[in-house]
């Protein structure tokens, strides 16, 4: 269904448009995001995102401290997926300083990254439903599952949300006894939760009516605008960095990349559900092949675990990226041979995925703008870094 743009015939009737401001304090803006919306009746004529209300100078702070000290700050970028953010930063510095990662650490990293993907997608769908008006009930379900995974994170790293678990060349410490069994248990029970979730949602008439054909993103625009992650794949573009860069040990696992057909809000919702199923596949394989012994951090980096202020990568630059649940999370680090990076930059997927928000929203109603924003899946910590 093609949406007719009410804008064209507007001048015939009246030129009265209404400019409203959504946010920064608004229950559906996922934090402190602000949109300046121009409305004709209830139809959106123009939409300008305004951000910076959570600009915490991540880059400036990181350039003033040692490499390892920035690791906890990456947790706070996208506060749903601290492990994925750690992963991206660790990969970049490993590329910069040419560090190898031992086998066992790679397995731990992949397991953590995929668990994070489950946490993120489940919460995003909960919030998307929240934006649809199903106030808080789906979130209750979503957070129930999230808590189970957060318990695992807490056992492993000591913190629920801000794990700060990865180190250059490995991870901070070994898995405590019994955690693997807990993870296996969670992975085993997760599909039944997904089925429960889907039984409630996927064929729900209201959800379909509100989400289908809303906010359609064409693949050409998506590529040109640098959209990544589930949003890009919902538009039908087969681009998953786990497959393309083959970073870490993703080559060993057998998983598929779910693709959408239309690129509307419903596809974005459903691609996430399917991605969770694929993540579970990766988790199962990783748990099966998990090496029982081995180092958790490379020998080269062991002295720097405690003495991290002396870690000086050679002069040079590196850009590395991971498939974070929101999209491509890239880090660009320039080293000048001192313990502090000369330049530290984050390529935040949430920020760049917002580029096309206006294109998606024009012609829709205000209520649709809210769910389109919900389906873009932003986290303000990352948008504003």
């Amino acid at each position: 269904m093609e949406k007719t743009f009410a804008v064209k015939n507007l001048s015939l009737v009246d030129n009265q448009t209404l400019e409203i401001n959504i946010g920064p304090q608004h229950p559906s803006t996922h934090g402190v995001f602000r949109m300046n919306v121009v409305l004709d009746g209830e139809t959106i004529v123009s939409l300008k995102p305004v951000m910076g209300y959570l600009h915490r100078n991540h880059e400036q702070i990181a350039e003033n401290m040692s490499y390892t000290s920035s690791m906890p700050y990456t947790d706070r970028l996208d506060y749903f997926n601290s492990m994925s953010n750690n992963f991206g930063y660790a990969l970049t510095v490993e590329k910069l300083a040419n560090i190898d990662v031992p086998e066992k650490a790679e397995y731990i990293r992949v397991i953590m990254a995929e668990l994070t993907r489950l946490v993120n997608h489940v919460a995003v769908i909960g919030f998307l439903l929240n934006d649809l008006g199903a106030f808080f009930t789906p979130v209750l379900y979503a957070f129930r599952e999230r808590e189970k995974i957060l318990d695992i994170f807490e056992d492993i790293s000591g913190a629920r949300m801000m794990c700060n678990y990865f180190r250059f060349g490995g991870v901070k410490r070994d898995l405590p006894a019994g955690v693997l069994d807990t993870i296996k248990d969670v992975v085993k029970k997760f599909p039944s939760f997904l089925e429960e979730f889907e039984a409630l949602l996927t064929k729900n008439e209201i959800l379909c009516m509100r989400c289908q054909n809303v906010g359609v993103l064409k693949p050409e625009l998506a590529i040109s605008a640098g959209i990544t992650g589930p949003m890009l794949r919902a538009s039908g573009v087969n681009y998953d960095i786990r497959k393309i860069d083959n970073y870490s040990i993703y080559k060993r696992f057998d998983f598929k990349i779910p693709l959408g057909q239309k690129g509307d809000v419903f596809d974005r919702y459903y691609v996430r559900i399917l991605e969770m199923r694929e993540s579970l596949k990766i988790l199962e394989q990783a748990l099966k092949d998990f090496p029982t012994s081995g180092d958790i951090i490379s020998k080269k980096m062991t002295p720097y675990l405690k003495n991290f202020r002396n870690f000086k990568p050679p002069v040079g630059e590196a850009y590395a990226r991971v498939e974070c649940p929101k999209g491509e999370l890239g880090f660009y680090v320039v080293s000048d041979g001192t313990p502090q990076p000369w330049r530290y930059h984050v390529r935040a997927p949430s920020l760049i995925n917002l580029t096309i928000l206006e294109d998606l929203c024009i012609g829709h109603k205000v209520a649709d703008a809210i769910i389109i924003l919900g389906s873009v899946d932003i986290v303000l910590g990352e948008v504003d870094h």
Partner: protein
Amino acid sequence: MKIEEFKTLLELKLPGIAFKQVRDSLLVENPSDLPKVAFFLKNSDLEIDYLSSVTGSDYLDYLESVYHLYSTTKKTGLITLRVRVKRDAPNVPSLVPIYRSAEFQEREAYDMYGIIYEGHPDLRRLFMWEGFEGFPMRKDYIQEDSEWLEPEDLEWLEKHQVPVTEEMKERAKTPRIIKKDAGE
């Protein structure tokens, strides 16, 4: 593709544009050539259609704008381009007409480093507010000392009838000395 091969290929296809290899990246010597290079990359059979990251960087003598590109159709990459501009005339042509993803990232680089992207449809500050002075990520930026009231603060407080102690007024008169080498 190795960066040396890539350089020779570009020099062959785009005569008249000077490139220089900097580590694993290509420096476009003249910033105004950048759109031509980007247009070629996107529309030739290289099909570099995805601009991943745009960022600024401050090297004291000059500012740099760095571009990381990939191809989503051919699944190739990474290609890094960079341009260097003077600190006092930081003008770089914008890549928004070619790659839409540069829109917010160029605004961010403008906000943080003051690099002016010519041809950008809406070059405003992205994170800081309008009226903010200076570019906070430049190495010579000195931030305010937020524990110390200054004359304009006192003026504002007086206007809003907030009582201020004499001691504080006295303190505001003495100028702040900020040591540049105070960092650890």
